[in-house]
């Protein structure tokens, strides 16, 4: 039995065309991009081409793209790097950020920075009032994600950036879940720094970027050979960067289809959920089109996900990164959802290759498993 993949917010399959762009850089001699001979120069050219592709997909200039090895690294770099150049200031982030934003902020507290989380309402939308209140304290960086990995909720980043700028702070957004699923423009979002990642858009793992306004003072996370204009040392991962560039180009070309297709799948899916008495989170606010996050009272999300996996459906009980822990989703808790209900949360995230038939099959399996699990718990009780 081959399983049906409905976990595209965790990672995505590599597109065949992306693979083809990468193969020459994996199989043939590729020089160190720092070397001046023809092997090195062709590696350098390939990186610069990819930089242009990433920039175009993000509405940025190529000179604003700094390649990193992961979204985690880019987020750590933004938070620690920007705050680090302004000692003793405040770091603000939303309460629903990925841990790779909130944890570096927390780590900075030990060395003299302030770190505060801004709350969200019951739909998962950032509280602008809380932001304004916090901004009265001297702040170096505000980090709010464009689209949430669990609920899919899209924040009004341009508005938040405007307030941040007025307060004299720098604005960073983690756009990892936005790219490829909605239009993303560094210029229009009006931010100083933005994180994007390759493996969420059918590119390879191992490449990501921080898009950075050059006027921002930032301290490097990695010191050494001085690659990426001295901001990110380490020999460039040529094959992954080339793949990231190709994936960006495809993501832009496929965006309209992706958006309408996955929205149709999700609407159908959520319609089908109606008869199951589930709670769908953030249903009545703006979300990226492919994501549905829901919970059943009385059934553990982890149990349901494992049961569905046996039936051949890959979904998530929370974000992959925190699947290790049995803690309820911090995103749902921030939205004021009761821990018991939050523990029942299941995330479905569609991709362009999923079909209506798969949605129907998944709904059937879901109904059966819920029924079975309810009977089991009924018997136990």
């Amino acid at each position, binding site marked *: 039995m081959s399983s049906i993949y409905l976990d595209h917010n965790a990672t995505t399959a590599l597109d065949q065309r992306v693979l083809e762009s990468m193969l020459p850089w994996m199989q043939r001699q590729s020089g160190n991009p720092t070397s001046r001979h023809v092997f090195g120069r062709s590696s350098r050219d390939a990186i610069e081409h990819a930089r242009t592709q990433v920039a175009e997909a993000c509405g940025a200039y190529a000179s604003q793209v700094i390649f990193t*090895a992961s979204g985690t690294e880019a987020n750590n770099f933004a938070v620690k790097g920007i705050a680090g150049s302004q000692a003793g200031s405040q770091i603000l982030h939303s309460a629903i950020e990925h841990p790779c934003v909130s944890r570096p902020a927390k780590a900075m507290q030990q060395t003299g920075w302030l770190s505060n989380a801004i709350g969200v309402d019951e739909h998962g939308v950032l509280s602008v009032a809380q932001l304004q209140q916090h901004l009265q304290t001297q702040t170096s960086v505000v980090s709010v994600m464009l689209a949430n990995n669990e609920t899919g909720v899209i924040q009004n980043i341009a508005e938040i950036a405007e307030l941040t700028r007025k307060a004299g702070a720098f604005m960073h957004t983690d756009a990892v879940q936005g790219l490829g699923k909605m239009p993303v423009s560094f210029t229009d979002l009006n931010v100083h720094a933005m994180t994007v990642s390759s493996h969420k858009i059918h590119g390879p793992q191992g490449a990501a970027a921080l898009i950075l306004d050059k006027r921002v003072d930032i301290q490097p996370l990695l010191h*050494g050979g001085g690659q990426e204009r001295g901001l990110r040392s380490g020999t460039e991962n040529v094959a992954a960067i080339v793949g990231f560039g190709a994936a960006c180009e495809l993501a832009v070309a496929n965006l309209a289809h992706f958006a309408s297709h996955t929205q149709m799948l999700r609407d159908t899916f959520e319609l089908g959920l109606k008869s199951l008495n589930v709670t769908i989170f953030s249903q009545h606010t703006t979300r990226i089109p492919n994501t549905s996050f829901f919970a059943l009272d009385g059934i553990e999300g982890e149990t349901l996900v494992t049961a569905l*996996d046996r039936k051949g459906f890959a979904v998530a009980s929370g974000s992959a*990164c925190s699947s290790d822990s049995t803690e309820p989703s911090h995103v749902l808790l921030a939205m004021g959802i009761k821990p018991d209900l939050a523990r029942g949360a299941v995330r479905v995230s569609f991709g362009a290759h999923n079909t209506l038939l798969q949605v129907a099959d998944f709904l059937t399996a879901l109904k059966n498993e819920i029924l079975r699990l309810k009977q089991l718990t009924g018997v136990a009780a």
Partner: protein
Amino acid sequence: MSASIEMQVLKGSGDDLHPIYLDYSATTPVDPRVAAKMIPYITEHFGNPASRSHPYGWTAEKAVENAREEVAKLVGADPREIVWTSGATESNNLAIKGAANFYSAKGKHIITVTTEHKAVIDTVRELERQGFEATYLDPEPSGLLDLEKFKAAIRPDTVLASVMFVNNEIGVIQDITAIGNICRENGVIFHVDAAQATGKVHIDLEKLPVDLMSFSAHKTYGPKGVGALYVRRKPRIRIEAQMHGGGHERGMRSGTLATHQIVGMGEAFRIAREEMDEENVRIRRLRDKLLHGLQDIEEVYVNGDLEQRVPHNLNISFNYVEGESLIMAVKGIAVSSGSACTSASLEPSYVLRALGRSDELAHSSIRFSIGRFTTDADVDYTISLMKGKIDKLRELSPLWEMFKDGVDLSKVEWAAH
């Protein structure tokens, strides 16, 4: 071996557009067996290793753990002592900043060597900005560290020492056991950058008195973008994480792991373990052939000790030849040089300067680095190319003419402009 078919592109004809690759210390080609092993993990097995709820994640996690075992085996470590990183630069940053910060209550003094890779030097400099103190030891003219000088540099507040196993420019091998023992006796944490050592020298961390060791995949026929840090468990060494997030790698290093790259590193290190002894004999023979061929040329100087050195490296200065013209003249081979403008920095090789070489000799140096796919024909071609080009360049050089006329150039007083 299927390697030969795929690697045809490496068999440069030696013309300017298809040079012969002799820059294995800069980066190595991915071994075709490594590439073959990686590709399934970017196509069908593409899961996130941290996804615990479905087989996509499990398959990826299993592959990552197999690779961790292969890396551990090559260096005599326990797999639980291996932390994945994006490369040796990150490993060096994590080891040095991580240990220095964790143990800073003990002291704030760090010892390293002036011939270390920039990823070590610049990281130590960054720590100096944060209030640490550092001693940068010069090596002997051979490139090797004087153990007495090292011992003398240790202070009561010395918390960390970082010395590389094999130098990237001159290939000399430091006496890691002896340095490590001195560190142990003095309670100093010892970090070793082994990016240039794997597959070239035997590493047995069960015996070596080393606490932290950095590795890179792309210097050992693996892919770029992946490396590892060894963190000793007995006695347990602690480091402060430098990248925070999902808590991957037992909290020491967060970030989604690039499964196919890790698989590639594992396979590359497996091949190194199984083939290095045989391969190094072959490579040593080629290197010695190259050395003998080039030693026929007058006024050449080998940089760094020839005995305590990996067989892959030959670094030679060609006296009375201008560095930039030299590099332009030998475009038929892909090599690194100590000349300005070959790297991001505009200074002549700081490694050769640290050995006490003059600016001129540092500028006119070439690093030949030999590897798995180098052939006898490549070496023959290189010798004849070098001989011909050096002759030509010296014919044009007034300094060479003066030298041949017996003028002692060191005593010439040049008129100021």
